[in-house]
């Protein structure tokens, strides 16, 4: 088995259709400007009062499901792809400590449970596996050759997004009167806070004596955060279906400044998405 597994080779059964970020953003059904924009609710945040709430919730749940599969695959690959540090070269950037591998294995188990939970929740909500396309951006962030980049991209950015998504879904379950959904999201949220904290702790520890590497990792996290803002799908604006879960992010080890920065990045991504959609509409006319 190879070290470092390319995203194009992710194994799926025949129900799945995979797309990349650009294809997802170009989907006219999610346009924030142009002729389709008027068909959407004025407030985009996922609430039961939205006319398309059921479909949007199923779509989001399916997104959680495929995201959990990729998070499981990413954690598993980190167990496999890196060797233990050589005592002769303890600062090597392509090794990981034994305890970090153990944490990644634990995360693989957690993500397996999340896949199980999201399959059952999807069924409960009336969705089918493969009903929506799978955006593979999450696994791409887990493909770096530097384990610290993976911690920044997956544990801090992706799992941070999961905190936001689960908080939104938990609130949706609460408002919609669906205790089953609220219960499950709350449990998954607890795991995700643990995963983000794990990432924050390891990032600090592994780069303790390498400030340049830490800087690069945090820059990479910022890039991934922008990508995971899904063109504004996650921000503090009501135009975004998913909110920013400040309290849980702080529990997971983010500082207030870091959360502020993600809020700014997310808002900028929302504006960029609007501009991209407007340009696409203009060129189509």
């Amino acid at each position, binding site marked *: *088995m190879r070290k470092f597994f390319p995203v194009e*080779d992710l194994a799926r059964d025949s129900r799945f259709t995979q797309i990349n970020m650009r294809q997802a953003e170009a989907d006219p059904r999610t346009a924030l400007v142009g002729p389709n924009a008027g068909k959407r609710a004025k407030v985009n945040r996922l609430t039961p009062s939205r006319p398309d709430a059921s479909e949007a919730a199923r779509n989001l749940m399916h997104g959680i499901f495929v995201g959990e599969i990729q998070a499981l695959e990413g954690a598993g690959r980190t*167990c496999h*792809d890196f060797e233990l540090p050589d005592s002769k070269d303890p600062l090597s950037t392509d090794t990981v400590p*034994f305890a970090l*591998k153990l944490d990644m294995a634990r995360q*693989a*188990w957690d993500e397996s*449970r999340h896949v199980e939970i999201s399959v059952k929740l999807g069924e409960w909500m009336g969705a089918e596996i493969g009903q929506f396309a799978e955006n593979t951006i999450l696994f791409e962030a887990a493909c770096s050759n530097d384990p610290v980049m993976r911690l920044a991209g997956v544990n801090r950015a992706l799992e941070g997004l999961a905190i936001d998504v689960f908080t939104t879904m938990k609130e949706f379950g609460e408002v919609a009167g669906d205790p089953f959904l609220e219960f499950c999201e709350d449990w998954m949220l607890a795991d995700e806070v643990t995963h983000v904290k794990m990432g924050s702790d390891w990032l600090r520890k592994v780069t303790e004596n390498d400030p340049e590497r830490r800087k690069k990792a945090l820059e990479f996290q910022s890039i991934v955060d922008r990508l995971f803002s899904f063109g504004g799908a996650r921000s503090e604006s009501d135009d975004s279906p998913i909110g920013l879960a400040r309290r849980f992010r702080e529990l997971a080890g983010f500082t207030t400044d870091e959360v502020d920065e993600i809020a700014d990045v997310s808002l900028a991504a929302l504006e960029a998405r609007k501009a991209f959609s407007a340009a696409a509409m203009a060129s189509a006319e």
Partner: protein
Amino acid sequence: MADPYKPREPFAPWDRRQLPGLFDVEESARRVGNYKWAEMKLFETLGGWVATVPELDVKMRLGTHCYHHAWHAELWHKRLPELREMNPDRLTQPANDAMVRFVAALAEPEAAEHTIEKLVGVYRVFIPHFIAAYTFHRNNTSEITDAPTIRSLDFALRDEFDDWRDGEMLLQSLIETPEEVDRAAAHQARLEKIMLEAGGITGPGTIGGA
């Protein structure tokens, strides 16, 4: 009311544990180091395979079992310093070169069409050998002096049996044709031959008789 000052036997009549055991501290540590190495290789392989299998139920089981074996590796890692090995990495070793070749052959299948080979290697070869090695150690070490190892062996064995059952059921549900039976058997035989050369997870004498 019973007299609390009445002398009682230190070992109750139903407690038949014995002091003698086959392994001294060094031998127990050597075996534990081999276990840790083998469990590590297994959890790394399972983690790597998750992305390569298209079957969703298999994918989730591999993720779950990956953690079980990581936890066993952690148990053995913690046990080593208690067995006078202050540098656990020194004893975290394969029993011999054949074990290294066994793990390489186990981890070789990668293609999405090779789920049967992946599962056969783990659930029809490697895990049964773990069960054998752990059972032999558990039943032959001193029940009193080496009780902490026995406790970890019991935890690990419970997982091994449960995981073996999961894996065997997955395999039985995946094997649908006589050709697939042959594929499974051929891969099992190939791996068993290397394991035979290794003498088991801790080398010759893994289950006695060396």
